[in-house]
């Protein structure tokens, strides 16, 4: 029929479209409400920034924090008004345990596990039940893998030097010691009578004692980074443990020329010879690792470093800084500017920055036959309603066991070999086969270099892996290596060989 008119009446239809669009918009809002209110709610409600966590922390008697032997590291006290405050065992654990203060907030595990310590966020069912009354809070005690004796020994070993030590079990990822020096008196921050003065002084301290260097300090690695290059070179198949470079033999006393930049050795041992990976590792050859890095390529180097945990904060109980191979501003594969940067990075002197914890994981991965375990501090949460054990967690296999064993052998030569001994004096644990690598991180300018050591022992059945960093202390072999050796020896004293 002719009853329709062409031009008019679209308003009804367009309004229907608008109604539909509005409904979709509100659907999106409903989705967002579901996302925040249900999907990510468990994470948000146990965050230390959550109002309920903050409120509970003020009223609830927080759980205690215990070391692996049950020694109390953090407990509650009451002041003369009956108000609760925290008290800590020793300054040595402050950078791990942190502090909880009503005035100045919280840090360390006290912050990361604020919800659990205050008795919130135990498990979903308990959270649901809590709404129906009863005692709403079930404060959890934190059981740590930390060994109080070893931790104090680590702090003592650093003495008055700035630096960090990380010791962990390579097979389980349990952190036994994590020392950052200088440390601070957490009890003085938590105690309301001394809090203000202490906190103000700490914030003004130029040595920055509130910084947990082991997890948040980023340092030039120097030669310890060669182990990462070795992992990438072997793992990617770019070289084998027998590969040698003709260019190394041809490099004269002036070193190796890469794009007009000279790479020199730090010493004159075995000059003019083409070395294999174990030989080069023993004498810490810059030229070999520069060539190995160029052979591996930037993309592989960054990729394998990423598998070790570089490039993003590590999955850990405490906040960590991301370690980097390069700042990624270049156009070359992996983000390097040119081959010069890649060659320098391969022996740890490019735009490479690492945390001590990350380097401990590198040693731990080699020790654990190429498998990276998730580093852990908290092994159990103990509450009134029972204990929740947190077991070991394998993050990923980084390289094959064969490749890992080749590096183990190379690192053993670096500690026990006739030439290697000169670079890692004192790293050898008496009576225990020991592997390691020292590092001397040149910073440019006139200051002393950072002193590094990473290692593990025993070589065949590794039980302890370590990373030692001492800021501006001199050569790695002279300062960090003996600290590493002594602390590993201390471990075997305590835990038996």
């Amino acid at each position, binding site marked *: 029929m002719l009853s329709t008119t062409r031009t008019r009446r679209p308003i009804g239809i*367009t309004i229907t479209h*608008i109604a539909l669009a509005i409904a979709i918009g509100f659907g999106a809002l409903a989705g967002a409400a579901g996302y925040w209110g249900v999907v990510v709610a468990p994470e948000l409600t146990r965050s230390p920034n959550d109002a309920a966590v903050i409120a509970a922390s003020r009223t609830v008697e927080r759980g205690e924090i215990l070391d692996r032997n049950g020694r109390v590291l953090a407990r509650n006290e009451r002041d003369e008004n009956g108000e609760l405050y925290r008290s800590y065992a020793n300054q040595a654990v402050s950078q791990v345990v942190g502090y909880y203060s009503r005035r100045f907030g919280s840090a360390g595990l006290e912050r990361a596990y604020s919800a659990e310590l205050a008795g919130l966020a135990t498990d979903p069912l308990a959270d649901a039940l809590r709404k129906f009354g009863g005692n709403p809070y079930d404060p959890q005690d934190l059981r740590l893998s930390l060994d109080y004796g070893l931790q104090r020994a680590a702090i003592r070993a650093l003495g008055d030097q700035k630096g960090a030590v990380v010791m962990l079990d390579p097979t389980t990822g349990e952190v036994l010691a994590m020392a950052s020096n200088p440390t601070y008196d957490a009890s003085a921050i938590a105690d309301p009578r001394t809090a203000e003065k202490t906190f103000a002084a700490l914030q003004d301290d130029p040595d920055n004692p509130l910084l947990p260097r082991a997890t948040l300090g980023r340092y030039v690695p120097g030669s310890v980074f060669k182990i990462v290059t070795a992992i990438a070179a072997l793992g990617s198949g770019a070289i084998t443990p027998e590969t040698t470079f003709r260019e190394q033999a041809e490099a004269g006393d002036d070193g190796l020329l890469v794009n007009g930049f000279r790479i020199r050795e730090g010493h004159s041992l075995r000059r003019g010879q083409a070395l294999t990976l174990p030989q080069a590792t023993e004498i810490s050859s810059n030229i070999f690792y520069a060539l190995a890095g160029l052979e591996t390529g930037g993309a592989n180097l960054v990729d394998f470093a990423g598998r070790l945990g570089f490039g993003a904060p590590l999955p850990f109980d405490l906040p960590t800084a991301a370690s980097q191979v390069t700042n990624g501003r270049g156009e070359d594969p992996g983000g390097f500017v040119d081959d010069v940067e890649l060659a320098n990075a391969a022996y740890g002197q490019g735009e490479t920055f690492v945390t001590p914890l990350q380097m401990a994981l590198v040693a731990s991965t080699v020790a654990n036959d190429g498998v990276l375990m998730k580093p852990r501090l908290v092994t159990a949460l103990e509450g009134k309603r029972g204990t929740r054990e947190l077991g070991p967690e394998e993050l990923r296999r980084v390289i094959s066991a064969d490749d890992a064993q080749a590096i183990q052998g190379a690192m053993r030569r670096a500690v026990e070999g006739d030439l290697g001994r000169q670079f890692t004096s004192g790293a050898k644990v008496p009576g225990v086969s020991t592997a390691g690598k020292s590092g001397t991180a040149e910073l440019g300018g006139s200051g002393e270099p950072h002193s590094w050591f990473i290692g593990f022992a025993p070589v065949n059945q590794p039980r302890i892996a370590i990373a030692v960093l001492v800021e501006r202390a001199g050569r790695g072999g002279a300062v960090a290596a003996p600290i590493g050796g002594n602390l590993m020896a201390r471990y075997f004293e305590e835990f038996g060989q």
Partner: protein
Amino acid sequence: MTASARSRPAPALPRILGQIRPRPRWLELRLLVLVAIVLVVGSASLGATVRGRPDAGADLFDPSVWLPLDVTALAIYLGALFAAHAAQVLAGRRTDQVLLPAVGMLGGISLLLMQRLPQDLVGSGFFGAEGLGQVQLVWLLLSVAVATTVGIVVRSDSWLRQYKYTWAAAGIALLLLTFVFGSDVGGQRLTLVIGPFSGQPSELLKVILVIFLAGYLSENRALLVEQDTRLGPIRLPPIPYLVPMAAMWAIALGIVVVQRDLGAALLFFGVFLLLLYAATARISLVIGGLIAFFLGSAVLATLFEHIGTRIAIWLDPFADPLGAGYQVVQSLHAFARGGLLGMGLGNGLPMIGGRVTIPEVHTDFPLAALGEELGLIGVLGVLGIYLVIIERGLRIGAAAADDFRSLLATGLALVVGIQAFIIAAGNLKVLPLTGVTLPFISYGGSSLLVNGLVIGLLLALSDKGVEPPPPPRKRRLDRILRRGAP
């Protein structure tokens, strides 16, 4: 008109009075009874939570525990709703019966929320009202009164239809007044203070904008649905759209810059684009307008620090959870604490350690407070009520007798809907946080009165039986038809 016996002249005057006789509104009454039950139960839950808190072992069977928190306030509010119903029954108009109960429900939830938040968030009001809950009650009552009065009294739209340029001028004057004389509150220049009165002109401005746009678009719609301005190979919308579009774009960005009010700019421009689409059915205009707006905002974000900061906070509030991102982070935490079922009315955490958990919770974050206490279920319920109000308004628009009324009702519904969307999205980190209010729930006189006016106009427009719109003007029809001719 020289016409004869049977061909009557079109009625030019509204048929007032004489015909008024009471007409029952059973649906509205049924819904209002339900509203009353819901609010009494909610208030009892709130009262019991507040009273039961000091001594955890309150007696389940003690009736005094279960009294509403503020019996008088609740009784007055419900009384006002039923009085509004009674007035409409007596007036006998065939207006919408869902809007009043739906808005009444939102207002009631607002009342419960404001009674439960810290009362000292506002100073004392007037009529002896003290504290947040009582002041909000006064505004709610006035809002219901405005809605009902407008819904009953307005029977002719000629005062809106004929003076659209006057309205536009008034709107621009109001805007300029705010630009120049507005006082800065919290970095935004939203409040206009004249003597003892203060208010937010952008609330009123949105209604004026809709009236003007409805008039302008309905007059030019038929003429220009399919004409294009050609600029070489580029097809542009016809000039009469291009000009107001550019003007609206400039005004919206001007509001962003001068008033620092991203919310109002988004609201105005969004309403404008959707009305444009309603009138022309050209999606390209909407897309083009949105692109222009976002490009403009992006340029402004680089030029003006405060806009850039807002956008940075929106993208990652957790980067600075205790500083810049604090409000939004706490809002999200409130939704998270609420979970599925909520903590229960009165059981949330509006204060910690003597400070308000979410600053400006009563104006900018009422949805987050509801999320904490009523949970996801409650938030979805509230959003659902908004959706019904909007769809109801759009329905009134679709059924209206002519283009002007159609666009007017659509625009009024959109003003409420888009505003609710913008602030809810801000609370949920879907959009950057802005300072617009959540209609009918946020604390605030300007917002409640103007939204009452909007509901009143929608009610009036929903009555199709009163005055027919003026017959189409000849000149216009002529052109419609001539366009089709070869």
